[in-house]
């Protein structure tokens, strides 16, 4: 028999309606007050992994989702008036009628006792929308912004991310085509703690319209600065990109993974110089961090820098064409 200790109440309405507990192994459970023919103190409990709890507390999923997808498909009942020195026996049950589950739409922001985990450090980024956006624009702009944000998050020395994990991620993909970059940026995004990820707060589509997104203000500002720089220094930035990209293309480095290519000293020097030039024209001062995370490999560094430049330049195109404006408040 497992026993549960109550850690905190999330929702109180005449009695605790939703509580967080843990068993002797430290596994977390959400416990929901339920109607019960024999007890006024019955609670339905499900195990929740750290990820699911984080998803729930950050409002990525609602309470019904948590209770419809319990860990190991196990449900338990506990009775709050039957405690043994502050611990409550978890009785496994197999049949859970639908009336014991919450309906859709209960999110952590409705908790009465504990604030939901919304990071205090994030602020609202206003993205102005103008002109005509087609459906691809509406997916492309947020995607590229999320990619740039993820990358800049990883560039912070003090972000609290594990450099060993980042290093493994920076060298994981072969960088022979688009799939590597999509996977790379997706993986980077999932390294960001939930409260600091980009959260859509509001979308108003009109001309002019606006999107409001929560973001770390420093990173949003850095992206805005890079976008401004690309548009202000466009000729030099594009020339630096072209020089690096064409050299890699001529050497047939683009279609091959960095693991398959043995760079000689001249290659390394050329790549280093071209990377420095692109980073300088772009106004990007974290080249050495990419190089470090790439295990001091100039080819991997070059490919990742180029992929980052492409994303910033696509964002810059939105701004330059008047379709979007970035403003951090």
């Amino acid at each position, binding site marked *: 028999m497992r026993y549960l200790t109550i850690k905190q109440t999330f929702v109180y309405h005449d*009695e605790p*309606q939703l509580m967080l507990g843990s068993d002797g192994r430290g596994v977390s459970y959400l416990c929901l007050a339920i109607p019960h023919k024999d007890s006024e*103190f019955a609670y339905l409990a499900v195990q929740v992994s750290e990820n699911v709890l984080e998803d729930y507390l950050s409002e990525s999923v609602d309470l019904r989702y948590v209770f419809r997808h319990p860990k190991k498909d196990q449900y338990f009942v506990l009775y709050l008036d039957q405690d043994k020195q502050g611990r409550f026996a978890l009785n496994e049950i197999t049949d859970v009628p639908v009336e014991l589950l919450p309906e859709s739409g*209960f999110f952590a922001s*409705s908790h009465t006792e504990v604030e939901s985990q919304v990071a205090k450090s994030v602020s609202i980024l206003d993205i102005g929308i103008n002109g005509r956006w087609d459906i691809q624009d509406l997916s492309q702009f947020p995607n590229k912004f999320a990619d740039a944000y993820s990358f800049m998050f990883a560039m912070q020395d003090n972000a609290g991310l594990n450099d060993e994990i980042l290093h493994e991620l920076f060298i994981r993909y072969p960088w022979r085509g688009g799939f590597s970059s999509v996977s790379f940026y997706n993986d980077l995004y999932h390294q960001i703690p939930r409260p600091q990820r980009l959260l859509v707060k509001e979308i108003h589509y009109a001309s002019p319209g606006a999107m409001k997104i929560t973001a770390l203000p420093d990173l949003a500002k850095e992206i805005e600065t890079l976008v401004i720089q690309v548009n202000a220094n466009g000729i030099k930035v594009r020339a630096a990109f072209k020089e690096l990209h064409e050299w890699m293309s001529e050497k047939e480095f683009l279609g091959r993974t960095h693991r398959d290519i043995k760079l000689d000293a001249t290659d390394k020097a050329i790549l280093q110089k071209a990377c420095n030039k692109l980073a300088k024209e772009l106004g990007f001062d974290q080249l050495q961090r990419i190089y470090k995370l790439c295990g001091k490999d100039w080819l991997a560094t070059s490919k990742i820098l180029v992929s980052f430049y492409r994303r910033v330049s696509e964002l810059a195109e939105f701004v330059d064409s008047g379709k979007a404006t970035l403003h951090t408040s």
Partner: protein
Amino acid sequence: MTQHTISFREKLPSGCPPHDANNPNGLTVYRLVASNPAKSSDFDSHKAIGLPFPGGTPECQSVSCSVFDSLKRLDEMMILPKPRARYHFAVSLVLNSKSGVVKGGKKGHYDWWICSGFMPEQHSYIVKAY
């Protein structure tokens, strides 16, 4: 800090209501009830119903009556299975110094300690049926 010299509808434990509970000063609140019209028993605390209260919740809270500052919060509570099974209506009422004292929680939830002599069912009107 509020000095509570008033008498309350239910017997309260020592130190209850807490010092940070205040005069509601005309606060409009909403509560889920089982009957239409609301009965006095719809405002009984968990303890007044005669149920022993297990650990984990302050005893003072267990002798309060939960109210919310908006109907929307009640709608959210009705998503949960126990309130959904127990309650069928929402009432609204305005609280003042004769009603008792309240302590605001988060997200519009208030613990309300009701004054003796105040009959909440007479000051409530149904605003929604579920």
